[in-house]
């Protein structure tokens, strides 16, 4: 199941040229771009690992793309997302964020039912890959 989140989530995955143009758009607005990766696909997992610091004071997308290539090389079978942080007073939060890499196979989620008191049913979405320990969840 294809995990989607953030901007452009209804579009097919962006090509590198498209990503580069989006990055340049962010930089032209003075936003700091950062990269994050994870192998926990659950939609409620908001704490992704940071790939280095947010990259402040960068002017050209090429520098960010270099980091992205490096991050992809180190984390081939992970989700990677690109975030743009706007430090403008009163905003001080992310302006945009989108997925720039996903694992080659995404097994998806199971729906678990648990009987609670009074024959109530509690539902839970659980990613199939979460059975395995971190770092071994995708790929070989």
């Amino acid at each position, binding site marked *: 199941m294809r995990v989607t989140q953030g901007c452009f989530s209804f579009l097919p995955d962006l090509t590198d040229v498209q990503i580069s143009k989006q990055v340049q758009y962010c930089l032209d607005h003075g936003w700091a771009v950062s990269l994050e990766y994870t192998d926990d696909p659950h939609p409620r997992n908001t704490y992704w690992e940071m790939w280095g610091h947010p990259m402040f004071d960068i*002017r050209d997308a090429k*520098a960010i793309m270099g980091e992205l290539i490096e991050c992809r090389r180190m984390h081939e079978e992970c989700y990677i997302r690109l975030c743009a942080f706007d430090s403008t007073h009163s905003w001080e939060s992310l302006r945009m964020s989108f997925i720039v890499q996903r694992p080659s196979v995404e097994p998806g989620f199971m729906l678990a039912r648990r009987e609670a008191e009074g024959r109530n049913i509690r539902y839970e979405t659980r990613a199939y890959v979460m059975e395995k320990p971190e770092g071994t969840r995708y790929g070989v």
Partner: protein
Amino acid sequence: MSAALQQDPNGMIDLRAEFASAGLETYLAGLDQDLVGLKPVKLRIREIASLLLIERVRQGLGFTTEAPTLHMSFTGNPGTGKTTVALRMAGILKALGFVRQGQLISVTRDDLVGQYIGHTAPKTKEILKKAIGGVLFIDEAYYLYRPDNERDYGQEAIEILLQVMENQREDLVVILAGYGDRMEKFFTLNPGFRSRIAHHIDFPDYDDSELLSISETMLSRQNYRLSPSARDAMRDYIQRRREQPYFSNARSIRNALDRARLRQAGRLMAHEGAVPAEALMLIEPEDILASRVFAGAPA
């Protein structure tokens, strides 16, 4: 690129129009207007700009595909305008489309070289990332290399720089700057740098009349001016200051003017009663003659 568009039916190309469309004239005229003296530097920059323009037209027509080497070295004594010209150079390169963003990142050894093993590479790469799409200006570049210490981390920074200067020529332009003789020695010890640098520009010292007109420009920018007798005092000051150690051209002049403004403020505060608004703009000879440069000299 617009080159193909301006080709008339006879296959002629209007280079003037090409020149105008790049907006180059504003940069070059600005250079002529704002910077006093520096004739050979301005000439070289015009030449480089023409070369780059031709290069761009050739690229547009498909005659060349390779990115030209644009790395430069600026040599000259302190205060001769190397950083100022580098800033303009970034603008020219941006106008011609040889760098994408046109920012100038000015660094020295401290910004590139780390304190301990494994610190240098990330530090240098961090700076390079900031400079991508623009110009990296390395002031006093010879400090990167310390021949007396073979374990100096500067060597590591040099290797990364050389690699980037070769492989990412279309991404950033490196300008090395420093005093002439020491740069010469640096290039002899690091032949890799010399071969990667296309343009060597030497900045001459300013002569006395140029320094005087620089001092007047500096003052008028801050809404001050010299009284006629202060102008003579300033001319005298420049002659004497040049003889003294640590003379650094325009920078010495700027410092001298800062001190003159300080003395002017003291003089006005000591004045009894009201002063005319005009007096707040005027530098008088006594503000300049109080300098230590005149100490011990016959009046």
